[in-house]
């Protein structure tokens, strides 16, 4: 099995956290995994993208046309990275409202910002929320919900239950969207 994920967002949204969770999940499954992050000089508010490659890979970088999945914590950052998706069969999971343009890729969009503004979950957990949406909607995603929950616990037991709560909320929300 080989699965390549691009995670895109803005500095401070916690894209790197997702790389950690996915690498832990892979290791719990005894799968090979390479991850890396790209960020420019800004510490906050700049473009960030991360790569996770599960399976037999030797280089952490992802080329254009290769990724199975793009998880985007913000709409424009999704569009900025779509060239990394496979030309056929790439999936986008994006935090965006109804204005997100149509692309040739299967797209699951959810307006997580509005939900955070309505205080349905804390904005700091946007990354975990989008991971929940991914679990609910990407049928090829190589990790199970139990798998991800365990990885979240391994990563930081102190805040794990709170994060898992957000994960559950996202899974519930994501099942409801079309």
């Amino acid at each position, binding site marked *: 099995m080989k699965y390549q994920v691009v995670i895109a967002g803005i500095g401070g949204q916690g894209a790197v956290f997702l790389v950690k969770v996915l690498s832990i999940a892979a290791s719990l499954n005894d799968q090979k995994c390479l991850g890396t992050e790209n960020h420019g*000089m800004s*510490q906050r508010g700049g473009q960030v993208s991360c790569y996770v490659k599960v399976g037999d890979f030797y280089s952490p970088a992802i080329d254009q046309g290769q990724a199975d999945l793009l998880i985007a914590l913000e709409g424009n950052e999704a569009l900025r990275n779509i*060239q990394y998706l496979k030309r056929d069969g790439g999936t986008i999971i994006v935090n965006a409202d109804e204005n997100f343009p149509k692309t040739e890729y299967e797209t699951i969009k959810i307006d997580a910002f509005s939900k955070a503004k309505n205080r349905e979950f804390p904005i700091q957990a946007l990354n975990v929320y989008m991971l929940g949406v991914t679990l609910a909607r990407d049928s090829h995603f190589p990790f199970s919900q139990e798998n991800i929950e365990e990885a979240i616990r391994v990563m930081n037991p102190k805040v794990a239950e709170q994060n898992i709560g957000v994960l559950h909320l996202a899974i519930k929300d994501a099942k409801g969207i079309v």
Partner: protein
Amino acid sequence: MKDILMGNDAIALALIHAGVDMVSGYPGTPSSEILGNFQKYKTKFGVEAYAQWATNEKVGFEVAYAGAIAGKKTCATMKQVGLNVASDALMSASYIGLKGAMLLISADDPGFHSSQTEQDSRSFAKFAKIPVLDPATPAEAYNMVKLGIKISEKFETIVMLRPVMRVCHAREICDVDDKLDFKPNTGEFKRDIPRFAAVPPAGRFRQGLEQFERLELIKEFNWSEFIKPQIKNLNKSKILCLTSGTGHGYVKECVGEMNIKADILKFDMPYPLPKEKIEALFEHYEKVIVFEETYPCIEEQLSSPKLYGKLNGTVHKIDEFSKDKVLNAFVNAKVVESSDNYKNAKYDKELPVRPPNLCPGCPHRDIYYSIMKVFKKKKSIYPSDIGCYTLGLNQGAIDTVLCMGGAVSMASGFSIADPNKTVVATLGDSTFMHSGVSPLINAVYQNHKFILLIMDNSTTAMTGRQTTPQRSNPGTIDIKKLVEGCGVECHEYIYEPNLDKTISFLKMLQKKYEEATGPVVAVMREFCILDKERSSAMLPRIYAKVDEDKCVACDICTTQYKCPPMHYNENHKIEIDPFLCVGCSACIDDLCPTGAFEKVEESVK
């Protein structure tokens, strides 16, 4: 034991596992987490070790090197441009060698992700005549640290480890030692004046000859340890790829995915190479292509009409590798037909750019905004330096960025060359300590007239907030005292999120400058938003919003101040992103000419 580690974490753990007990360095992306993680492991395992940030890379190198000639196992960490600073010491140390062991870690940044040059430390190792190991992944970096220490001990030479950003910041499941068998090595300096204080010409000439002999032995070692075991995999096709470090991963994946018939020979130690033995391997092949980041370090050590690489234009010369670039090289060498396998269309409409910017609420933004208000562009020159504050470029308040400490000496140069303009130089506290003091002394004793703002946030912010000398020694080491010690008055401004106040302070400096005959220096006492220890007390947590009725879309806030939360909404009025705003309150009172900025009563945070 299996552990998921970031490259810099794997390196730090390997240092402990290799018994290194003196680590000294200066932060620089992508190397910075190595020393920090070493400190973390040191505490976790309760081992006795020295691990400290030095004031600059040269100092860091020299501390570690002295440790190594006194018999300890040591390490110096830095980024590739930091190696330039340490190079004076390295060049000489390479002649002298050592008694214990020393690993010099110089992390490269192919693709200029956060560096002003793309220089290849392997080529520097070649210039300095020391062996270099080039890991391809975090797991390899772990092993190579341990190996590097052994090689250093065996040959009494400094060994370089050259991880690139894609190793330092990659994460991988690594196989690491279960048990820690850490014995601090007792140092004992044994006097050997002809060696450690060799006098030119005879003393150094002799050491120069020894250096050549040593290199021959290391070449043999390179052959038997790293190259020979791979020979059994060769002679299976007509194309041979020579790879090193990360270049290897890209080639291996591309060759596999594109079904290219080619053998791969990986150089774990790209310098020094046993040239003749390697060239003898070419006999069976039609073409030999070299894939390496970023300079032709391997390529320049070999010669053969079969050789393809950067020197004959087969492989790209600048920028990071990608599989597409590897594939292109195969196409250029006429091994395969061209293919668009690694290409895909970008989004075809314009997307709002997010140029690198200071964090929301960063005090540096206020300083640069105020500089632009007080010192008009036509009549000023703004040299700056290396740090977060380089992002003041966004506000038009920076004209030059050269190297660490360059702002001060360049301010001198500009003041001589173009005396009709006011030179307003900016640099950070850590940069000032690193290499800003000697140019300030130079400016004072030669009476160079300029304004220097030392933007002191008491941390090395851009590289992840490492401690600075004054932070760990409050009251003892202080920028104001240092400046005064250089022979000039030091004005002091305690930052507040109050633009009018900051502007008034700069106007006061402007007056001083008019009367001055030498440099006018001020230390701006700031804080870094991400430095929780200090910022939590200093951030007022008063969040901003904009009254749409008052906003006339004049652009002042988004062109002169540029705090990331500020953007136009669909009504073409400014809106503040409530998730990005940190509540510094600086924009609320004095920024907007129509007073459209207001306090938020209840924040979403």
